[in-house]
């Protein structure tokens, strides 16, 4: 029996409606309990801000394209190296750090659960191998279906149940978590060097539209009763004037689930652009946020851009090629047969660049204009908008108008005429930040029932104690303390075990891989469908029997089983 008592914690736990209360937290065998014995290990939080462990519902930290980002970027590796010490491995990398570096830096910031945003099913084994080398966080992987041939053929035949059966089988087979759609249809078109412009363009050969892919996968997701909703990276990322496409997409989304959203739209900053070209490029955060405010069935994440060097990486292959033609830096591309694509380029976001400055403003505008913090998650689409180590600065920007104004004074002077950021007075409070960095993310991912994102009785004891005295500092003015505080938790506790303290890593942990396993009626089991097997074995370059990820790739793991309506 392993017991821990955290005394004098100033707890904010939005899921349990605790908005700031001095209390003790008792932990036994990794779970929050009523009380513990006299022999429990004691940590004195000293009245510091205590939150559920941080959750990142959209980050790129493990898998084929992340590793290729490292592989092609020795310059980035040199930018983040630290020596091996104690339990800590040597680390490399700033924007695409090694698995250990990612894990340590997230842990130091109080993060305990991460969702890898994009896993190609064919290469899932790679993601799981890297999960095993990410010791301090629980991991899950969204599985890509934007250009899945079997799904597109089912859509063309008007057979949503078949599409759902393919999705369900694939997610179980590759130990994935949710359905990710990246530039639906566009990644298949990119197989021919083409793209789709918005949701009504037919995909070459398959003759289905992105709208049909999105609608079918939303229905499939609900049929399979997956914990998380469809997770969408809209078409047209990064293009001036794309907000119209984004809004048209949001308008497609029905409200099908009473526990959580029906659509999670990711890095919406990159999809809220006005103008007809780079010359008149401007923010359209207002109409996009306005629409989200009227659609409780949609949750977004910011995809905030922060200035400096980073690496962009996405399954959206055509977008990365366009970006390469703008930046003229190095470019990698990796199309995945019958499934999806991907691309990587390094970028530098500059304050002196008007477009970059507007992008920076848009992310903040979205977070300030979306009224309900449960509908807007704090992310950078790590590392696309910026490496996750920038989160504390983003928190401070959202909590302080003064800080925003000070930063605004340093960006391109024309930014003011293309954005509304300077006119936004809203300053988020501690509770809202807690929602946007853990509670809301847990709810959006559908993992509150397994004890994530809150500190109620029975919850997993994933806890972050920050060196911040809520009553004593004014985040609107003392934003530097906010940045410092969220950069280095006093304690990060995972499953009841302290794993980081004041920037030091204390243990070599063992994560839990969380995966979804929708149980489908045997007569709808696509693995028994002769046409599907024939298609698979004929056109994939691996045999169907060699495709599923074997159990041995998961060490500690949590299977979230659901009874599919299928």
């Amino acid at each position: 029996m392993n017991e821990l008592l955290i005394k004098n914690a100033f707890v904010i736990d939005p899921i349990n409606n605790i908005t700031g209360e001095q209390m003790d937290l008792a932990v036994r065998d990794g779970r929050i309990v009523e009380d513990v014995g006299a022999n429990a290990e004691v940590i004195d939080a000293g009245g510091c801000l205590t939150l559920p462990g941080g959750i990142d519902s959209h980050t790129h930290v493990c898998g084929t394209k992340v590793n290729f980002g490292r592989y092609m970027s020795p310059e980035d590796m040199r930018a983040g190296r630290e020596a091996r010490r104690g339990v800590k491995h040597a680390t490399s990398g700033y924007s695409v750090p090694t698995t250990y570096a990612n894990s340590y830096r997230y842990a130091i910031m109080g993060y305990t659960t991460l969702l890898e945003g994009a896993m190609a099913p064919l290469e899932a084994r790679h993601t799981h191998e890297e999960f095993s080398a990410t010791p301090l966080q629980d991991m899950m992987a969204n599985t890509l279906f934007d250009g899945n041939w079997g799904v597109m053929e089912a859509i063309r035949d008007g057979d949503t149940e078949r599409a759902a059966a393919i999705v369900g089988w694939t997610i179980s087979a590759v130990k994935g978590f949710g359905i990710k759609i990246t530039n639906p249809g566009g990644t298949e078109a990119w197989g021919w060097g083409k793209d789709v412009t918005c949701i009504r363009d037919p995909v070459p050969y398959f003759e289905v539209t992105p709208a049909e892919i999105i609608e079918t996968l939303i229905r499939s997701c609900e049929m399979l009763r997956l914990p998380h909703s469809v997770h969408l990276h809209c078409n047209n990322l990064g293009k001036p004037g794309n907000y119209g496409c984004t809004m048209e997409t949001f308008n497609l989304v029905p409200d099908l689930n009473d526990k959580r959203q029906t659509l999670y739209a990711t890095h919406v900053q990159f999809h809220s652009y006005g103008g007809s070209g780079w010359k008149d490029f401007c923010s359209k955060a207002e109409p996009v946020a306005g629409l989200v405010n009227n659609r409780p069935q949609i949750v977004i994440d910011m995809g905030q851009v922060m200035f400096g060097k980073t690496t962009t990486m996405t399954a959206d292959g055509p977008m990365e090629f366009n970006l390469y033609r703008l930046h003229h830096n190095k470019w990698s591309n990796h199309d995945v047969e019958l499934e999806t694509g991907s691309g990587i380029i390094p970028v530098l976001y500059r304050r002196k660049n008007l477009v970059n400055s507007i992008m920076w403003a848009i992310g903040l505008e979205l977070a300030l204009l979306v009224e309900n913090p449960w509908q807007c998650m704090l992310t950078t689409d790590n590392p696309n908008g910026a490496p996750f180590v920038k989160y504390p600065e983003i928190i401070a920007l959202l909590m302080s108008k003064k800080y925003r104004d000070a930063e605004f004074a340093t960006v391109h002077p024309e930014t003011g005429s293309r954005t509304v950021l300077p006119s936004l007075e809203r300053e988020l409070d501690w509770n809202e930040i807690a929602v946007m960095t853990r509670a809301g993310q847990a709810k959006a991912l559908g993992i509150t029932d397994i004890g994530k994102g809150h500190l109620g009785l029975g919850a997993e004891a994933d806890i972050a104690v920050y060196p911040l005295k809520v009553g004593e500092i004014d985040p609107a003015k003392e934003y530097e303390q906010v940045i410092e505080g969220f950069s280095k938790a006093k304690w990060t506790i995972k499953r009841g075990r302290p794993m980081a303290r004041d920037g030091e890593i204390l243990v070599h942990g063992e994560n839990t891989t969380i995966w979804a396993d929708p149980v489908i009626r045997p007569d709808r089991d696509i693995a028994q469908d002769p046409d599907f097997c024939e298609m698979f074995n004929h056109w994939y370059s691996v045999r169907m029997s060699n495709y599923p990820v074997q159990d041995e790739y998961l060490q500690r793991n949590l299977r979230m089983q659901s009874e599919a309506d299928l």
Partner: protein
Amino acid sequence: MIHRDMVCPFCGCLCDDLVVETEDGQVVQVDNACTLGSNKMMGAWQHRLKSPVMRDGGGWRDTTYEEACEYAAGVLLDADRPLMYGWSSTQGEAQGIGVSMAELLGGVIDSTTSVCHGPSILAIQEVGHPGCTLGQVKNRADLVIYWACNPTEAHPRHMSRYTTYADGFFMENAFRDRKLIVVDVRKSDTASIADEFMQVKPGGDYAVLSALRAIVRGRADVVPKTVAGVTKEQLVRVAALCKEARFGALFFGVGLTMAPGKYKNVRNAIELVDELNRHTKWTLTPLRGHYNVYGSNEVFTWMTGYPYAVDFSRQIAFYNPGETTAVDILARQECDACLIVASDPGAHFPKQCLEHLAEIPTVLIDPMQTATTPLCRCQIPTAVTGMDASGTAYRMDGVPIHLKKFLDLGYPTDTEIIGRIFKQVKEVKHP
């Protein structure tokens, strides 16, 4: 007993459709494999070293795994600058332990990459890599180029699984509709079946690639009448074929990476493919040799940030090919102990390096006697992944494949042996 959908542990194609028949612990039949894979599968069970061996004066003596592992750990712990080399014909799990051990020992870990596609990686680190999985080529490519490689002999099923002889989803008659261009310094077997064979004078690849880039960019006017033995007429024709293709795939081999120009050749090839992507769809793939050499790059990268030649002597991961690569370290007589895993430098390294390997305590982990054996003081035989051990490998296009076990010959796996050595290292050198 029949084992279906087995994975071949020979080359970077990692064919996963082999049918293997075993009888009384022996392989009696292998279907679907090429000659290379089939020979490995059929013969491997019978040519194994029976037990670990140690130098004994001028000869060898059999020893136990316990003594051999203890010896290996002792040698590594005793060294100031241990080198851990090889890793391309073993399972990813063993590679991972190797990295952790190199890190704790403050040693250097390098894979066979540094003497094959190391230059390709240097080029990728400068300009990136427009690639794809092999099924993408199989289903779409109407034009395939093999540059400075000879898959017929080195990757015998590459053409039947992924290119020339493979069915393609988007092709009526793939064999007829797919064009093949071969570029090489000699007319190889692959060249003899090409629609277009472009014979380049040795050392001329860089110039030919530059000429093609110029033509694709509309600057044929700057190209002379012949470039490294290739006529302008042929260059213009090839460039036109490349631009007209719906989907082109360029594969290249060690003939490009190890010819004069080295990584600059590969960089030029990548930039040609970049340029062609402004007109149509093109991808490029290095033809990787050993079945899991790409896996060593993957594992090293996620653990250390670098794909090969990683030096932990300063407790950080440091990478500087040319300095931290195995050949260079041996040629400078810098390392004072060496662990070689699943590779055969004895057959490939310069004489000077081998002389140094023979001077220092060198331990080899390999199932069979090889050209490296005579250079070692101790050899530890292990199971062959894909035959008597399961494990992970990465195909030349980055697809991770699980290799399966179909035999039990009682040998420990590489992961077990390296794990045992690491455990002993950790007992002395606490993390």
